[in-house]
């Protein structure tokens, strides 16, 4: 049981390091705060480009959501799926970070399908196609598709 835990932990930690390098040009690391994995807590260290290392607690709203998103990508790399659905994962990010996440999704979309709900321009501009949804008389309507 301990072995299985560490096998997963080490693999996801390695993925997390890679994702943070690609996404924020920085360094990331997961660590446990105790010897026994089943009673410890998982902490995230994240050093955005050009800054000092910081714990999740001291980060800004946007930095926290970038770290959480990196963790989600790291978990997904461990058990790849044929399709992914993201619902407004970019809402806390500034324009540059939205662009970076969009670029990463574009790259990953070579191997899997991505369906991404978003209100942010840099994300919509990177997608292969955009589906519009609007409210009609008394129900939701799917409108035209815009191609890149």
């Amino acid at each position: 049981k301990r072995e299985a835990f560490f096998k997963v932990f080490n693999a996801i930690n390695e993925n997390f390091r890679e994702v943070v390098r690609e996404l924020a040009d920085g360094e990331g690391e997961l660590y446990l705060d105790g010897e026994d994995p089943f009673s410890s807590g998982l902490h995230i260290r994240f050093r955005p480009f050009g800054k000092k290392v910081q714990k999740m607690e001291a980060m800004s709203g946007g930095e926290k959501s970038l770290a959480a998103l990196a963790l989600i990508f790291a978990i997904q790399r461990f058990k790849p799926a044929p399709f992914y659905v993201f619902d407004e994962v970019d809402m806390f990010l500034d324009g540059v970070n939205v662009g970076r996440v969009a670029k990463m999704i574009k790259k990953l979309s070579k191997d899997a399908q991505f369906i991404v709900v978003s209100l942010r321009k840099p994300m919509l501009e990177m997608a292969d196609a955009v589906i519009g949804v609007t409210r009609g008389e008394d129900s939701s309507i799917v409108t035209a598709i815009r191609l890149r």
Partner: protein
Amino acid sequence: MIQRIRLKNFKSFKKAEISFDYPFVAITGPNGSGKSNIVDSILFCLGLKHSKVLRADKLTDLIRIGCNEAEVEITFKNGLRVRRRVKKTEKGYYSYYYLNDRSVGYSEIERVLEELGVVNDYNVVMQGDVTRIAEMSPVQRRRIIEDIA
């Protein structure tokens, strides 16, 4: 993978069909237009999350107001079609699964999902999940790793 989704009286949708002809497709629109309802329709149809998570107290809340029945069909790229129907009854509801129009139990759907490679629901990140993970306690975060192991 997902080629098309067909919705019938599911949440805010009366009748709708959405095709996914490209690997990276974005969905956009005003607040309250029905974007997250599309995400809910995928989770409902494939039985990936129970109703509580789909912002509904009971499965019948997913049926469009004023209707008795809701249906979602997902067609995969390999031609396979999964359909789920929920119908109101006096005492509660019935929920039916179909695989290429053949009525099956949920375990059959689970088998198909495993063959497709959908083994857990980490491939669907719902609205607010990022904040939930960012604000989680360290112990809750460790539990995520434990679940996967």
